[in-house]
């Protein structure tokens, strides 16, 4: 494990340097969070029908989405892409390391570093500043200890699921070089079907079984609803089973593809 941990921490430290980008992103996301919440407030005010989620649950869901946006596997690892384009990927293959594990670890650093940079100020803002300025109903709820712990476990599985998807996308680079096509398709699938745009319970009833079966629900919807209380903590094993099943499946597919990709790999440039 030591080599992989070393690479993880090195990249993590490098990525923590991008603080300005995190701050800039933070304000965009505060804005988006507020807009989304206002839309949902109008939506909830205009309907008397019972909704699958309460407004407070939706508010927490929205803020978590903004805080953990960087965890979403919506793009390939730009560093890996640059390596494949330039041919520096040759050095990756000169290391006595399993390439899948290496890229997975890179993905872990690539997802966690910006997430941590954004999640902390975002949470502070949504949890404490909003009620302080009188927007009590819009706030990010403070979870109970059990809920908080259940969420912590689920979000770790989210990270693994997200990295498995990122690594899979990285592997497609061995065929496409730029992976722009794969990225565009996946960005749409991930943002819509994970629940990042609209919480999944607010989708039509007929779509529910499909949405819940797809891997994307484990990225946003399931852990966020555990946090907001929409899914009781007693349901945690089912959520984890979903996430772990999909992580394992994606790792398996990724490894299978990587073996094939390695056989046909072309190292670009001289």
């Amino acid at each position: 494990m030591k080599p992989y941990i070393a690479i993880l921490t090195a990249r993590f430290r490098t990525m923590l340097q991008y603080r300005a980008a995190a701050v800039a992103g933070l304000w965009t996301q505060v804005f988006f969070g507020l807009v989304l919440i206002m839309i949902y407030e109008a939506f909830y005010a205009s309907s008397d029908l019972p909704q699958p989620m309460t407004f407070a649950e939706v508010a927490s869901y929205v803020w978590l989405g903004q805080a953990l946006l960087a965890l979403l596997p919506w793009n390939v690892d730009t560093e890996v892409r640059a390596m494949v384009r330039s041919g520096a990927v040759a050095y990756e293959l000169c290391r006595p390391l399993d390439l899948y594990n290496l890229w997975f670890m890179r993905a872990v650093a690539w997802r966690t570093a910006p997430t941590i940079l954004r999640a902390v100020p975002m949470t502070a803002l949504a949890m404490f500043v909003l009620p302080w300025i009188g927007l009590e109903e819009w706030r990010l709820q403070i979870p109970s200890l059990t809920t908080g712990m259940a969420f912590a476990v689920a979000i770790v599985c989210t990270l693994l699921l997200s990295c498995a998807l990122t690594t899979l996308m990285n592997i497609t680079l061995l065929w496409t070089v730029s992976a722009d096509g794969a990225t565009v398709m996946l960005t749409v699938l991930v943002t819509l079907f994970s629940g990042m745009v609209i919480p999944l319970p607010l989708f039509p009833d007929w779509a529910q079984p499909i949405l819940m079966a797809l891997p994307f629900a484990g990225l946003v919807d399931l852990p966020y609803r555990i946090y907001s209380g929409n899914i009781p903590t007693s349901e945690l094993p089912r959520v984890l089973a979903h996430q772990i099943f999909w992580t394992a499946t994606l790792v398996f597919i990724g490894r299978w593809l990587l073996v094939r990709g390695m056989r046909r790999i072309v190292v670009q440039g001289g």
Partner: protein
Amino acid sequence: MAPQIVVEGLTKRYWIAERSPGLLGSVRGLIRRHHRELRALDGISFSVERAELIGYIGPNGAGKSTTVKVLSGILVPDSGRCQVLDRVPWQQRIAHVRDIGVVFGQRTQLWWDLPVIESFELLRDIYRVTHQRYKSAKDELIALLDLESLLDVPVRQLSLGQRMRCDLAAALLHAPSILFLDEPTIGLDAVSKLAVRDFVKQLNRSRGVTVILTTHDMDDIEALCDRIIVIGSGKILCDGTLAELRARVSRERWLIVDLAQTDVQVNDPDASIVRHEGHRVCLGFDPQQVSPAELIARVTARYAVRDLFVENPPIETIVARLYATQADEAAMKTAK
């Protein structure tokens, strides 16, 4: 003792997607693509003994880098046999790369944003080098390559020459027994080139590290290599010492003359004009037919000369000729 590296009939093909130029061509390319086969390696065979220092040369696109990448386990060839330290590189990649060091001159293996020393420490962890071994290897490399002042500098701030020295050290921290250098002196200034050459020579002579060096720099070859393998269009054209190569292709040497006037026609019965550009004339001659001293005496007596010097034709010329003769031979064979 068995050779360290054995290569037999190695073949690697690439498929190149071709597109007709222009907008129409691009549109046509959407529907039907033409692929052209490129034989990067076309039946390469050679073997290398322990502690040899081999220059692997050839024009751009000849297949030098492809060979290095196959030998270092990065690329999988289409056919042929290859054993390095009794392993098949691409099949036992992880075990294989532990015993080799690789430097690609055009790229760095160091972490761009980290200080050099942190890259070294990362490599120590990646290769699972014990702290004791790491320390002695590191100290030795720092002394040999004069890296002390560079250790705390982020890699992106290093000059090319400094970076190359650090890259060399990085490739050797795990004490590999074979070192592959792919154009290690590309783009370096004269001083840095000398530093790299001295280091490689010392590494080979005193530590017995086998070195395979690809380069375009004839001086690298002359300074370092006992043996040269010339490759062209995926085939080995020549495998032997530098003297053997020159003898085989041509004994020709060049006399470069800077004339006082530009409008003079230079003629000599024993020399042919290779080039004539402005003041400078390049005369090719065979030293067994006419001695350089004699030719110089004749030329200076007949023309107003500002400066002159004798040199060997550059490797590109030798290789180009070698390739031309090879092609002629092939044509002769088919004609028969």
